[in-house]
């Protein structure tokens, strides 16, 4: 990571902690309610911290480029997921500690007789638990991504809203009007983060629509969708980055989908291309998109780009449709007449499904490009690499010392875990890995 990104990541981490702990410690200023035992006070503290964490979850997914840039969106979404587990742990531990100290408080679980502040607490906790369960087991629960996404937002708003209502209703620490105002300000700030991504950002996107200019079939049951800015200049992206695609006539749709750009970042005119594989969900309809269809693009995003890491040679490792950001990288390098060596290790199931294989072959004439195809089920007479990309394959094709190269990896999670482990075996430091997990949402 470049030093400016290291500094920014430290600042944002410190601010994140401040926004969790600051409102809690502010409660210790001014006048104080009667003191209680240690565990009751500890329980109150983790309740406040858990609520602040829940609220800040809206910020982690608000696509604030200046915040996410040092890490990349896939890391931020993974952090968002992990923090939701920690927040649910704190929020559930908060009443459990109180019940253990004073078992008669268990009567508060009866929502028919409990006061409103306890009902809000129960609603917040149950919403948060449902939200985490649905997020962890969405695929096993057979939930459509779009349905899950809407439910996720509704449950998140319920969990935070009911949590704030519980806190204000209990009012133990919020007797001072300024403390009450401070916490209400933070609650409004969290809601503003949600409104930013759901209302404000789409409002600005409304003025910058795109039109589908071309839909091309590619090998491997994939489609390339070319989009042209409609009435504006579009945006510039770096090779390897991605954008959120919202299909249809409005950018206010809840669900956008992240896809890597596959076209050259050096192209003029704002035209961008995304190559999308049919994975059986909404992607199965990509081939039916009519030319001229209005779409909205939010981007560019992502830390996965060669432009951030100067190197004498690039090693690109792709699995299946993970070729799309690599395609943008090699097309851009060709357009820039970049003569630095590029080695592309490209894993696929079979030869017929190797997306872009013909164009990659042609690009060898414009670039110092070596392509190593690794096939899981090679055709008869195949003399190339078979099986999966592993440490042995890397050792055969990469010039030592391995730690000197920059590695860009994109593919299915299983493949990426295997490659990262292979690179570790070869002594490649973490700072040289650059990966993009396209299954981050």
């Amino acid at each position, binding site marked *: 990571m470049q030093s400016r990104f290291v500094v920014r990541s430290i600042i944002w*981490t410190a601010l*994140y*902690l401040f926004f*969790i*702990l600051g409102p*809690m*410690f502010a409660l*210790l200023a001014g006048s*104080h309610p009667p*003191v*209680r*035992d*240690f*565990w009751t*006070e*500890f329980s*109150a*503290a*983790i309740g406040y*911290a858990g609520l602040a*964490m829940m609220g800040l979850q809206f910020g982690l997914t608000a696509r604030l480029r200046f915040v996410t840039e040092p*890490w*990349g969106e*896939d*890391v*931020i979404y*993974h*952090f968002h997921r*992990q*923090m939701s587990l*920690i927040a649910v*742990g*704190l929020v559930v531990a908060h009443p459990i500690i109180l019940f253990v100290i004073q078992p008669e408080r268990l009567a508060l679980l009866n929502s028919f007789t409990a006061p409103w502040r306890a009902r809000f607490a129960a609603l917040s906790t149950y919403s948060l638990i449902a939200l985490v369960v649905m997020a962890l087991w969405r695929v096993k629960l057979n939930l459509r991504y779009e349905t899950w996404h809407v439910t996720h937002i509704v449950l998140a708003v319920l969990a935070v809203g009911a949590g704030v209502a519980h806190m204000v209703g209990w009012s133990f620490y919020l007797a001072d009007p300024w403390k009450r105002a401070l916490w209400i300000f933070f609650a409004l700030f969290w809601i503003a983060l949600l409104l930013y991504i759901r209302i404000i950002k789409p409002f600005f996107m409304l003025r910058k629509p795109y039109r589908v200019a071309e839909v091309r079939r590619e090998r491997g049951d994939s489609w390339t969708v070319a989009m042209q800015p409609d009435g504006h200049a579009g945006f510039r992206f770096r090779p390897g980055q991605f954008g959120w695609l919202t299909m249809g006539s409005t950018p206010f749709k809840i669900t956008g989908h992240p896809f890597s750009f596959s076209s050259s970042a050096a192209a003029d005119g704002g035209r961008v291309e995304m190559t999308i594989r049919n994975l059986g969900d909404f992607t199965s309809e990509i081939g039916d998109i009519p030319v001229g269809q209005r779409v909205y693009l939010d981007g560019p995003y992502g830390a996965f780009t060669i432009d951030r890491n100067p190197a004498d040679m690039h090693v690109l490792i792709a699995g299946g449709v993970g070729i799309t950001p690599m395609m943008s990288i090699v097309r851009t390098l060709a357009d820039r007449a970049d003569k630095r060596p590029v080695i592309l290790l490209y894993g696929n199931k079979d030869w017929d499904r190797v997306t872009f294989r013909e164009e990659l072959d042609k690009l060898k004439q414009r670039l110092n490009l070596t392509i190593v195809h690794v096939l899981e089920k090679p055709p008869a007479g195949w003399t190339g690499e078979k099986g999966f990309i592993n440490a042995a394959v890397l050792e055969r094709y990469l010039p030592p010392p391995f730690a000197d190269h920059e590695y860009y990896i994109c593919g299915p999670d299983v493949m990426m875990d295997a490659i*990262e482990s292979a690179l*570790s075996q070869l002594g490649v430091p*973490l700072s040289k*890995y650059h*990966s993009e*997990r396209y299954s981050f949402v």
Partner: protein
Amino acid sequence: MRRLFADWLALGTAVVVIAMSVLFAFLRTSSELH
């Protein structure tokens, strides 16, 4: 590996938040903040 970094960051945040919650409770129950 980058996700491992996010795991450690999340774990570190949890540890700091719990430690600060202990401090909060300690300060509240100590004589100064009664």
